[in-house]
């Protein structure tokens, strides 16, 4: 295994972490019913 292999593995791992994070974030955004006091559907604080 040479330095290029190590760099490529790190790059691929970083890309995968980023991809998983972005996918999870996208899946979270919900829609709104207008009643924020009783609902947390959109995950707003």
């Amino acid at each position, binding site marked *: *295994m*040479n330095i*290029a*292999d190590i760099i*490529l*593995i790190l790059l*691929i791992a970083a*890309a*995968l972490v*980023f*991809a*998983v994070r*972005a*996918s999870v974030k*996208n*899946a979270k955004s*919900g*829609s*709104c*019913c*207008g*009643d*924020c*006091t009783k609902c947390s*559907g959109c995950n707003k604080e």
Partner: protein
Amino acid sequence: METLRSIKIGETVRVEKVGGEGALRQHFLDMGLIPGAEVTLVKYAPMGDPMELRLHGYELTLRLADAEQIEVCPVAAKAEEVKPNKKHSKTDHPGLGEGGRFHAKGDGVPLEKGTVIRFALVGNQNCGKTTLFNRLTGSKQHVGNFPGVTVDRKDGSIIGHEDTLITDLPGIYSMSPYSSEEIVSRNFVLNEKPHAIINIVDVTNIERNLYLTMQLLEMNIPMVVALNMMDELTSNGGSIDINQMEKRLGVPVVPISAAKNKGIEELVEHAIHVAYYQERPLRYDFCDKTENGGAVHRCLHGISHLIEDHVEAIGMPLRFVTSKVIEDDPLVIEKLELDQNEIETMEHIVTQMEKERGLDRSSAIADMRFRFIHRLCDDTVKKPAESKEHIRSRRIDKVLTGKYTAIPAFILIMGLVFFLTFNVIGAFLQDIFEMGVDKVTELTDKALNHVNVNSVIHDLIINGIFAGVGSVLSFLPVIVTLFFFLSMLEDSGYIARVAFFMDKLLRKVGLSGRSIVPLLIGFGCSVPAVMSTRTLPSERDRKMTILLTPFMSCTAKLPIYAFFVNAFFPKRGGFIMVGLYLLGIVTGILAAYLFKGTLFRGEAVPFVMELPNYRLPAAKNVAQLLWEKAKDFLQRAFTVILIATVVVWFLQSFDTHMNMVSDAGDSILAAIAGIFAPVMSPVGLGDWRILVALISGFMAKESVVSTLEILYSGSVETAMTSLSAGCLLVFSLLYTPCVAAIAAVKRELGKKWALAEVVWQCGVAWVMTLIIRAVLIAIGVS
């Protein structure tokens, strides 16, 4: 008594009585169909139903069955009304919402320093709220030209005022919600208690827009009225006495043009001022003591005193609650917890008012509001005879919604869209893109060989990531091109017309014309299509439309079609593409018939919809939408599809002992997919690689192609037969929508429906593939 149904084209009649009951009747009244209103029949839809009416200066569609409930009487033939060239008398500027005038009285209680000022942006559908929101916040929300583009609230802070939060709400016609997205807006204003409301009013249709304004004034929340599209009004020779209107409404009135970015700064200044100093409307009492014997006036004030203590206890605005109680709004009445005596007293007061006024309770309240609006508009608004935009729309509609031309024009337009997308523009750009992707792959391959990269990593990058993500990326131009045409149709106002003339056809399968909007959006992407069903006023129609959306083939499936058509049926590409789209539509129609007779018995909702003027789509809006779609596609390619390709590569390269395999048939993936093989063998899709591709397609449809490219090591054409390619095309067309679409279904209908959708679509796909396979074998495809 004559009804609206029986009048002739071009005839003008006066509404005598509005029949029907419940929310629909209230909706008729809120749209301005009140006793006394003059209505002209413009035309019938090409299939004879619904009808297009003109009232209060705008176009409304109504089904014949609903028109039958509205009693009318002829308007005596009158000479064309010639209004003297009205000149507004000079009115002092009331200075509301400005420092020193109203605030100087000292009755404003300012918010605490540092408070984030919350605004609600409220207005009728298609009056330009989202355009104004984008101007105020610098955001890039999608705008369109048909009622109901915004189905969800959107938040942002005003540029240069970080301590503000403005919420763009779906359009509403009144505070009596008729559809679920209207409930979002009403709930927000009532429950979230924004510090101020920015009420946007379309001045080209001012009477109907002010109807909502009057109800918002009753909420007693600080408010600014933004008169939008002033440029359109003035360029057609119209004008508004702003000072006089401001004085009469008791809130700041600011003329703006959101599309041309005019008047925005002044609007922001006024809005922040009224919100910060909590300057409430100077008046919300619009009933006239002298009008019709003062029956409505006495009723409103009598009930207002009767329920005052209950209203204070629940913290709602008194005048708003009083109006709702008289309109018999069950949600509000229930909240008040009135005792029997009070309910009976209230009923006596209302009955007396109905007797004296000669109108039922809801009509009397709507009439009182419209009378004030007419007086206000008579005194302050100089209307143009007919706007250039309306004349243009009328001319275009002669062809696009004409009796004999509407359906052929629709088929021609859609045919042209698909032809240009798949055969001309999109295909040309795709070839260029493909060449680019191939070149980058080749260069990367050379570079990796040059630095002696480990063979496993080399395989992962070239045969995994580049083969997978690269193959999907090349379809970007086709997808963007199709979205370009769909957005042009939407922004121009044509889709609203399609809903108008398709209503009768859709009713045969149990839907209303309004369902055509989500279904057409479904050809782009199922996620916004599912969301846009919120504009449908009935739960039954919403559920049914959501379940039918996946039958409209989305753009994410295009890579699958294009790939297999090029590889297996290059000479009949166009025919097969169109055939697949038609197969989806026909299967959807069959499913709709099935739903109509089983799960969703009953009638579709009435078709009451406004027809907007045609507008030339703004280049900036179209470019913005295309960029958003391209960005979304690229994001998916580098997230979901990247993950899927790496996972697929890993599972097909290693066995259960984590040893790299030379034959992918020994891999983990082959073992997992083998479990499903017996189920899929009858439809000709028993190969484990095809099964894996279909499973990865659940994450994102585009990854079906990328997965097959990896698993067949780039030689799909030689490894599969034309028969299995045909079966795979049909199954891909109809099987479960992707996870993002299922998540949208879950949000709208809940877990059970989402799960049922997955199972149902897979079942339908299996059955249809079995049938098509038998047909293909019968005609000699092997």
